[in-house]
C-alpha cells in the first residue's frame, strides 16, 4: 500500500509538474466550454439543457486522450532503465502498476472536476436534472478509468511511447466502434451481444440517458481489473525474460 502511494505521488507530481499538464487542462476546458456554450445558445427557449452533454463528448474524446495520458507511464520507465531499479526495490510489481494507473485516473478526475463549473452555471440559470447529470459524471469517470487502464496495459508492453499510444488507440477504437459490425449482421441477438461488449454500449444506453445499471459498473470495473492484471503480468514477465 505504502509503495503504491509513493509511486502514485511521484506520478501525479509528474502530471501536475509539467507545463503540458496545464496546456492539456486549458485545451480540455476550451473544448468543453465551446460545446457547453453552443448547447446553451441552442437551448434558450427551445429545449432543456442536455444533462449528459460533457460526459458524452468526453466518451469519444477519451479514445484519443487516454492513450496520450498513459503512454508515458511504464514505457518511459523501461526506456530509462528505472524499471529495473523499481523491480529491485522491496515493493510488489502490482504496486508499481496500480500506483501509476491511479495517478492517471486522478489527473483525469481533476480535469473532469473542472468541467463541473458548467453544471454550476446550468444550475444557476435553469433547472437541470441533477441526478441525471451526476449519474453521467459517474459513468464517464468509470468509463475513463477503463480507457486509462487499457492505456496503462499497452504502456507496459513496449518502451516506445508512440507505439504504446498507437496500440491502445487501436484497441480503444475497436472497443468503441466494435458494435458497428453488429449493424452489418442481420442477426439481432448477435448485434445485441456485440453492443454490450463495447465501451459506449455501457455508456450511451445507460449513464447518458440517466439510467444507473449494476451491469455497467461491473463492466467498467471488470475492464480495469483485467487490464491492470495483464499489465502486472507483463511487468513481472520482465523477470523471466
Amino acid at each position, binding site marked *: 500500500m*505504502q*509503495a503504491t502511494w*509513493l509511486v502514485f505521488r*511521484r506520478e501525479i507530481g*509528474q502530471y501536475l*509538474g*509539467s507545463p503540458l499538464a496545464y496546456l492539456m487542462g486549458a485545451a480540455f476546458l476550451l473544448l468543453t466550454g465551446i460545446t457547453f456554450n453552443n448547447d446553451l445558445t441552442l437551448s434558450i427557449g427551445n429545449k432543456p439543457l442536455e444533462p449528459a452533454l460533457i460526459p458524452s463528448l468526453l466518451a469519444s474524446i477519451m479514445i484519443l486522450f487516454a492513450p496520450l495520458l498513459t503512454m508515458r507511464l511504464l514505457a518511459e520507465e523501461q526506456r*530509462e*532503465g*528505472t*524499471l*529495473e*531499479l*523499481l*523491480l*529491485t*526495490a*522491496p*515493493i*510488489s510489481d502490482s504496486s508499481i502498476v496500480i500506483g501509476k494507473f491511479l495517478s492517471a485516473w486522478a489527473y483525469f478526475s481533476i480535469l473532469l472536476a473542472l468541467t463541473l463549473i458548467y453544471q454550476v452555471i446550468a444550475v444557476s440559470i435553469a433547472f437541470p436534472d441533477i441526478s441525471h447529470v451526476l449519474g453521467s459524471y459517474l459513468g464517464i469517470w468509470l468509463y475513463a478509468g477503463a480507457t486509462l487502464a487499457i492505456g496503462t496495459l499497452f504502456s507496459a508492453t513496449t518502451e516506445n511511447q508512440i507505439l504504446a499510444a498507437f496500440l491502445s488507440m487501436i484497441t480503444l477504437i475497436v472497443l468503441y466502434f466494435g458494435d458497428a459490425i453488429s449493424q452489418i449482421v442481420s442477426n439481432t441477438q448477435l448485434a445485441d451481444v456485440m453492443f454490450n461488449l463495447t465501451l459506449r454500449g455501457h455508456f450511451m444506453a445507460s449513464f447518458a440517458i440517466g439510467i444507473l445499471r449494476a451491469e455497467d459498473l461491473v463492466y467498467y470495473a471488470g475492464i480495469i481489473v483485467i487490464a491492470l492484471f495483464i499489465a502486472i503480468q507483463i511487468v513481472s514477465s520482465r*523477470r*523471466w*525474460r
Partner: protein
Amino acid sequence: MIEVKNLVKKYGNFTAVDNISFQAQPGEIVGLLGPNGAGKTTTMRVLTGYMPVTSGSVKVAGYDVTDDSLEVRQRVGYMPEQVPLYPDMTVEAYVLYWARLRRTKNPKQAVKAVLEQFQLLDRRKKLVRSLSKGLRQRLGLAQALVHNPPVIILDEPTIGIDPKQVVEVRDIVRSLRDNHTVLFSSHILSEVEQICDRVVIINNGKIVAEGTTDILGEQTHSDLALYVHIEGDKEQIQGLLQQIPAVSDVQAHESGFIIRGNNDELRHAVMQLIAEQRLELLEMRPIDRRLEDIFIKLVD
C-alpha cells in the same frame, strides 16, 4: 553476506551463467571481472532479485533470493550499468523517492547524509537532467546507499566517466569497505586490482579463476615479461634473443621486443648477451601486467 552456489541462469536456450559459485564476506570488496557478455550483469541481476535463478541457490544477507526476494531487495543497494534516472525530478526528490520505497528510517535525514557524502548537497534542488555524467554517477551511488544496505552491488560504475571522476568513484567504493559487502564488476583489470580484496574472473558464464589479487598476480610472476630495446639491426637482434635458452618467446613491440621466459634467469641472460655481443642497451623494463596476463591467458 553473498553466497552463490551452482548458479545457472538461462535465457531460453542460451546459458548466460553456467554453474558458478562464489562467496563474499562482510567487509569485503569482491571484483567480478570478465569481458563484455561474460555474464557479470546477469549474475548481478540475479543477486538483486531482478531475475530468478534457473537453478542453484543464491543467498544475500542470509536470505534466499528466490524464497525471500523482498527481504533480499530490502538489503541490497544496486547501481545498474546505465544509471537509471528520472530527469524531471530534483536531486533531493530522486534520492528521497528511493529512500522511501526501500522503507528507510528517517528518510529525509538519510538523504541529507548521503547527499553530503557525495557532495551533492548544494545541488539538491537542481533537476537531475541538468547534472553532468560524473554527477549522475554519484547520484546513482547515492541512490544505492541511501538505505544503508549491508550489500552493495555496482555494475561497472566507472564506465563512461572522465579519469578524475573514475578516481573519485574508486575512492568512494574503497571507503565502503568497512561497513558493507561490495560486489563490483568491471572489465578494467588494474581497477579491480586496486580496489578489490578478491577477484572472481568469469568468461562465457563460467568462473575461470578466483582468489585474492596477490595470489592471482603471483601466478604470472614465474613467467616474466621484459621489454628490451637494443640498438642495431632488428632481425639480427631478434635472432640473438631467441638463442638465449632462458627465453621462451620473443615478440616485436614498439621499437624493441617483448621477451618472456624464466623469471630468475631472464635479466642476467639478456645482460650477458649484451656484454658478449658488445651491443648497446637503450631500455629494459619489466612489463608488469599481472592480472591482465592471467586474464588474457584464461579468457583465451
